[in-house]
């Protein structure tokens, strides 16, 4: 009998507001420790929180994007626990009534789509960071992160494989970046994931779940879930029982390890935060946020297919990030003749070259206008596609326009029939044997002649014209 893995995910997404959730401190990443703090986020006696409405707006926007219910009245609660990087001894969070509930996200699964329920999104504040590495007998605390707004996005246990979990996370990651509600840089901890994993026989009730922590890359998430599912299955098959507990993923060994049992779990003693009145939103405020909704990845994919006639694969690739999609649209606007050529050159040629040097589209030394200039030269037969690739290499290296490079290197394609005919005649004169064989019926040799003519032109002859003229002249 087979096993089914059941996965639910809790994702903490740092909201990219300028200031913290409850005070005016900067949220910029990478500052000297404890330089972006104030009495409020240090938890000094008598200090009070004031809610950052920008964080609310961004959470509502995310809620609208997953087609969720926006609670016009939500509430903040205190989540109580002691830890040195939690200055107040409690975290301001939303427990009983979150801002967002009952949404969903459609993820690509094996050529189709699968709908993953999103239970809730609530707004809360991040804790500081405890630093232990390289320190002997002491720990250091950096409270720059203390108070940065987080959305906690909690899914339903709707995923049935590590691949689905990763697909969901990628989709969510893309969404929050499209919405510009988070920079979602996983290396900076701006998009963090905990996974609840259990196994069961298909059709049976859910098994006992474990919570996996420390999953800070898509690769680790997949590894951790797969490891954990196997561990649970083997445990049950050996007659054991899964214990409800929190487990830490050890990425160097690729295993999960018990961190604390259910009995050791915190009692967070949630209760309504008396320093903040309930958060009340007007319907009109929500509608205004909705009107500011940017185009979402799924809509954009469909539009790219329809408007530009792209394959679903190309549409998918080009809508990976908002920046890439915008880049493509500038390119297509600058080279309207052939949107598919734009897609090919961007996705295959430019991105491929950038990737080799570890760069992203936003770092491209070639602008969309410049690439369009290159494509124009292909379109008007000034250069061949093959030559164009060399020109692109040169453009990336020098940042110069295509025309300047074509001119300087004399790469202009030969499209003059007389010149091409001359070259063909020279090649025929130099290879009388092959001409005779061709004429005797060995048509395979046609390619040989094309190659020879192209070689003679040093690649500059227009290949289509070479083909056409060769057919004529070889028949003479």
């Amino acid at each position, binding site marked *: 009998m087979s096993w089914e893995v059941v996965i639910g995910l809790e994702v903490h997404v740092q909201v990219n507001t300028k200031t913290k959730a409850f005070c005016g401190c900067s949220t910029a990443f990478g500052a000297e420790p404890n330089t972006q703090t104030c*009495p409020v986020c240090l938890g000094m006696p*008598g200090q009070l*929180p*004031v809610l950052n409405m920008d964080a609310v707006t961004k959470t509502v926007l995310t809620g609208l994007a997953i087609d969720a219910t926006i609670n016009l009245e939500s509430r903040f609660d205190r989540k109580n626990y002691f830890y040195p990087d939690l200055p107040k001894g409690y975290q301001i969070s939303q427990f009983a009534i979150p801002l967002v509930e009952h949404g969903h996200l459609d993820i690509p699964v094996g050529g189709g789509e699968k709908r993953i329920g999103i239970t809730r999104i609530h707004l809360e504040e991040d804790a500081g960071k405890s630093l232990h590495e390289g320190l002997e007998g002491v720990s250091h605390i950096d409270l720059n992160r203390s108070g940065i707004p987080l959305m906690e996005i909690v899914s339903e246990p709707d995923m049935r494989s590590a691949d689905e979990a990763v697909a969901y996370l990628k989709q969510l990651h893309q969404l929050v970046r499209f919405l510009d509600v988070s920079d979602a840089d996983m290396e900076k901890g701006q998009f963090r994931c905990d996974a609840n994993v259990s196994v069961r026989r298909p059709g049976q009730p859910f098994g006992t779940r474990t919570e996996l922590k420390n999953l800070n890359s898509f690769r680790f998430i997949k590894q951790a879930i797969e490891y954990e599912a196997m561990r649970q299955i083997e445990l049950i098959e050996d007659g054991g029982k899964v214990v409800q507990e929190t487990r830490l993923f050890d990425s160097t060994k690729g295993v999960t390890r018990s961190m604390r049992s259910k009995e050791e779990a915190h009692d967070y*003693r949630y*209760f309504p935060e*008396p320093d903040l009145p309930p958060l009340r939103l007007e319907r009109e405020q929500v509608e205004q946020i909705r009107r500011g909704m940017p185009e979402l990845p799924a809509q954009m994919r469909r539009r790219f297919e329809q408007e530009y006639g792209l394959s679903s694969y190309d549409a998918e690739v080009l809508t990976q990030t908002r920046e890439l999609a915008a880049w493509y649209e500038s390119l297509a606007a600058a080279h309207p003749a052939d949107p598919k050529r734009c897609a090919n050159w961007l996705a295959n040629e430019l991105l491929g070259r950038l990737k080799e040097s570890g760069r992203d589209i936003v770092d491209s030394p070639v602008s969309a206008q410049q690439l369009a200039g290159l494509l124009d030269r292909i379109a008007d037969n000034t250069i061949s596609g093959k030559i164009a690739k060399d020109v692109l290499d040169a453009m990336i290296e020098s940042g110069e326009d295509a025309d300047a490079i074509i001119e300087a290197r004399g790469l202009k394609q030969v499209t003059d029939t007389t010149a091409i005919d001359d070259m063909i005649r020279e090649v025929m004169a130099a290879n009388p044997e092959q001409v005779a064989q061709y004429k005797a019926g060995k048509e395979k040799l046609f390619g040989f002649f094309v190659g020879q003519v192209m070689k003679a032109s040093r690649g500059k002859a227009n290949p289509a014209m070479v083909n056409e003229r060769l057919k004529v002249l070889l028949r003479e």
Partner: protein
Amino acid sequence: MPFTSLCEWSRRLSAGEISAVELARLYLERVARYNGRLNAFVHHDEEAILEQAAASDAHRAKHGARALEGLPIAIKDIFCTREGPTQCCSNILRGYQAPYDAHVITLLKEAGAVLFGKTNMDEFAMGSSNETSAFGPCRNPWDAERIPGGSSGGSACAVAAGLAPAALGTDTGGSIRQPASLCGITGLKPTYGRVSRRGIIAFASSLDQAGPMTRSVEDAALLASVLCGHDPADATSVSNVPQIDWKAAVGRQDLKGVRIGRPREYFSEGMDAGVLGCVERALECCQGLGAEIVDISLPHTEAAVATYYVIAPSEASANLARYDGVRFGHRCEQPRDLLDLYTRTRDEGFGPEVKRRILTGTFALSSGYYDAYYLKAQKVRTLIRQDFLRAFEQVDVIATPTSPVTAFRIGEKTNDPLTMYLADVFTIAVNLAGLPALSQPCGFVDGLPVGLQWIAPAWREDRLLSAAAAYEKATDWLSRTPELEAMA
């Protein structure tokens, strides 16, 4: 002289009869003479006070007088001030220097007041007798063997003993009104949300409210006019509410047409007969001034103390979690590990009453008990609020005793926290309902002051002040002052 009202001092300062420096000296001498015995002040920096007074005199000469120009105001040790320590009378904050002023302290400074030292209080405002202070008990000026009430005991004592003309207090369950009552002064707790809580060390955030403690009703109005107002940095401070014409409110001479509610639950048997008699006579006096006395009922009064002692400790258990020895305040010596740091720091820093309330609150919020305690308390809180709403359909203002008893002896109730908690039985419901209330002197029993409490609908502090001002003018309790010579 030391028992002169704030308003009278303000007039004399303006008339040039006395300078702010002279006024400060007058009270500094009183403090030097009597504070050793009374223990009303836990921090007093003579130099800093005289400096402020001199600056005030200079300001008056150059730019004219502001609302509280040159007036010395004693500050409960719960208000954060840049100058001097802010210790909340707790060992865990011993020597703590706040890096900012509480919002109301800023307002006082901007109004030209002279911050006149930090007053004694129950540790973290948890207590009704001032006995839980880490700096020793404050004493009642009317009888030094007795408590001044709490938690704002030091502020009440300072004003009653003429060590300062006025003081700031805070009131979570009666901490302004009960000591005002027991020391024979006037204390006003404004509507929750009327005064900013920013920079006031939190005890129970949904209940805490700062207010004036003064000799006269007019003084309370003067100080309130400076303290009240919206603060955008306190999310519970309210902006769109009726403003009060403080001066007009205290101008009232009679109580014609005023309906005064007399809640039968506050005049129950088992109360001190002397206290009851004083309050009844006060109501008769009000009747004589034209008021109509209406018998009303606040049926959930009985549940108020229990409700309060779930909600306040619950909030306190979270509010006091920040005193962990990590960033400020007391830290134990040589902690073995993190847990040791927490437990020893907090064990050494907090006194027994504070620990009791942290434990009570932690228990009430614990998984499995939350519904039975915290949630139920919130529901009862709603019922108590509704009691008042219904009552105010019938009456304009409610009058009750402030405290069921006069000041008790130091040590008398220390070992019986439940009896101690019942000392707040008449003041607590007001905090749970977020209403404004005022206590003023209305007589004496065996030489100890008795307080009359006025309660008004939310945002109607004007009604409290009008009723209290009219009563004050009709009586002469203000002229009685304690005999302090034996305490010098």
